[in-house]
């Protein structure tokens, strides 16, 4: 860093250099530098413009469009110019049943309840990921973080589910958890009763069955990330601690886990966003259930907005989802991840 700073100062305003009594830069060099600067900015503009254009076209524009659609009563079939402007009514219908007393009861039962049911499922997946997946993945990573025969095979096996496409995984688990499937037979063979109505359709177990599959699918990513983090932890620290008489657990607790903190925090961030946007697999698993037993906010949006062709309402749900993701992302960046960024600046 010190060398960087020195060279940085060296690039300071030319006038300073001359006033400090240093040899003034010749006009030739100044012109060359100006040209250099100009070329740098031209290149930045040229090279980022394709990405910025695409970002504007495929990210910014759709978000603005969705926000606009969400204020209208629009079925996506007729021309949008003929759609009726209804303000924030679509949001109100999702959140509390709308503002029209005549239909509020109907909206509460048919729209608001399923909406909050789906939101609850997302929240449950988030909490369960932190409470179950995180400790589990950490434990497995710590155990695997040593040399033993067949280590690479074990790692491949653990990571394999993550590589399988969500759709294929969904179809596979749908067959396994069929009321006549392997899971049912297994549970019966050990003397337990499988959930009534089927695994997914069960009011009580549906969302937990999905959580089980999500854990199977994404645990490997967490473990591989943590293992990568652990491989960066200095061997000498661990050996020094061992010489001082620290037990295996003390080494993990005091050295390894704190040192892979940044990796854990990044995983938490990815997991949060992934849980909020959970869609593909749930959709393949019969679209969140016949009564939304394991619907997420994304499948709710798809069902109400796209299948039913109520694009205005679907857009409102999409905007709600976008705002939640944005707030979570910004909040997490500003609080938790800022520490890591500050630390990395200190490290420099």
């Amino acid at each position, binding site marked *: 860093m010190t060398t960087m700073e020195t060279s940085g100062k060296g690039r300071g305003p030319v006038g300073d250099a001359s006033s400090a009594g240093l040899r003034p830069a010749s006009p030739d060099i100044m012109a060359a530098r100006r040209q250099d600067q100009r*070329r740098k900015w031209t290149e930045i503009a040229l090279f980022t413009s394709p990405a910025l254009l695409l970002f504007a076209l495929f990210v910014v524009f759709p978000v603005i469009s969705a926000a606009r659609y969400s204020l209208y009563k629009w079925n996506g*079939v007729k021309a949008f110019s003929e759609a009726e402007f209804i303000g924030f009514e679509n949001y109100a219908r999702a959140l509390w049943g709308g503002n029209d007393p005549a239909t509020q009861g109907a909206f509460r039962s*048919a*729209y608001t309840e399923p909406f909050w049911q789906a939101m609850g499922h997302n929240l449950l997946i988030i909490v369960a990921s932190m409470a179950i997946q995180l400790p589990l993945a950490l434990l497995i990573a710590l155990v695997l973080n040593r040399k033993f025969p067949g280590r690479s095979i074990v790692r491949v096996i653990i990571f394999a589910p993550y590589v399988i496409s969500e759709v294929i995984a969904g179809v596979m688990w749908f067959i396994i958890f069929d*009321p006549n499937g392997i899971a049912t037979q297994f549970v019966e063979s050990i003397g337990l009763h499988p959930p009534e109505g*089927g695994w997914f*359709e069960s009011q009580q177990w549906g969302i937990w069955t999905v959580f089980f599959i999500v854990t199977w699918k994404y645990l490997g990513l967490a473990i591989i990330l943590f293992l990568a983090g652990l491989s960066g932890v200095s061997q000498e620290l661990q050996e020094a601690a061992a010489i001082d008489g620290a037990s295996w657990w003390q080494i993990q607790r005091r050295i390894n886990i704190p040192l892979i903190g940044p990796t854990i925090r990044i995983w938490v961030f990815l997991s949060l966003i992934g849980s909020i946007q959970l869609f593909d697999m749930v959709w393949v698993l*019969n679209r969140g259930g016949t009564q939304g037993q394991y619907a997420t906010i994304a499948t709710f949006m798809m069902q109400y907005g796209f299948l039913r062709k109520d694009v205005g309402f679907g857009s409102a749900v999409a905007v709600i989802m976008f705002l939640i993701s944005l707030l979570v992302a910004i909040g997490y960046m500003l609080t938790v991840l800022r520490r890591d960024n500050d630390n990395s600046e200190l490290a420099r």
Partner: protein
Amino acid sequence: MAHMRRMAAFAAIAASTALVLAACSEPSDDPTGGPTTGANDEPVTLTWWHNGVAGDSGENTLGDYWDKVAADFMAEHTNVTIEIEQIQNEDLQRTRIPTALQSGDAPDIFQQWGGGEMAAQAEAGYLMDLSDTLSDTISTLGGAVGPWQSDGKTYGLPFQFAVEGIWYRKSLFEQAGITAEPTTMDELGAAVEALKAANITPIAVGAADKWPSAHWWYNFALQACSQDTIKNMGSFDFTDPCFVQAGEDLEAFLATEPFQADFTSTVAQTGATSSAGMVANGNAAMELMGQWNYFVYQGFTDGSDEAIQALLDDLDWFPMPGVGGGAGDPTAALGGGDGFSCYVDAPAVCADFLAYIASDDVQRGFAETVGGLPVNPNATDAVSSPVNQEIAQAASNAAYVQLWLDTDLGPNVGGALNDGIATIFGGTGTAQNPVDAMVAAAATE
């Protein structure tokens, strides 16, 4: 070197600009792209999207038949070229047609299921009004055209239409000692008990797909509500208490446990554990389904002529029994069909082609080759299988035939209705739920 970098930068921005421009450019309003007369010898191309795709066995009877129909038409009209695209049913209905219509670059002829979805397309101005040009064909087909009409205008022509009823396995009925087809709900209840006593699953329902279970509610509603009340559903009037009554009748029927175990986890058509698979494999005695299950059941055999014949010999059909005591006519029936619409800007010859599809000969060929039920009365003599003849007979015996309620109401209110009914099947909802769902969805229309 710097020069080369600048060149690269320039190339990059040029490429990205081209990309963006390509993505933004919309089909231009070419004045020559509008309606053409199609008359005389001016070359005309018709694009045609239909749902006749190959099944698991690789056979595509319907698609092959449409190829032949198009070829015959082109032979008669040498200036016409028909370009066909075969698209899977759900993709076609939910994704391809809506986006094509939105983009303004729609196929000239496309599959049309009628009802509320068609009405929305017509209202948006996407469909050709066929009322005057095809008035002769429309009067030949008669009442079957109803679902393809909106506000007194005809926006499509059906090529097949059939009522639904209960498919059953004769051998399982015999095993349970049932000697006659049930004609009332009491008799159906007795048959259910007899089958259960013989350790046979009485009725299979693919409730995981929602619509198969919804059809039970539709039938109860048809019995509980007068024809006028059912008709008024189209104008989103759900105030009549008969709709709640239909839900209560359904609850009472569910309480007799007529369906297979875990029925909300059962799909309708995919795999041996589906409701159709259960009936085809003799694991359930009955199923309430449309005429298409005649083909779906055959798909569960090994495909050999003997296996198909053995199945068809044991398969029979009876109309949905009347509940009695309601405002509806006990013989009212539910049905649905398939048809085609012309895009509003399609060449005029498109209408001629629709009329050709509905003509006596093509309809007769449809019944003979594909095994479907034609809508043209002059072609009914070509229906050969006894079950299909029975289904055709039931349609003519019915007091009136009501289009599937979800199709009739359109994807929004119809979808909401099905979701509301699913909560009754799941045991969490009340008879009020389907009505609430319809009222709420109707307010968003």
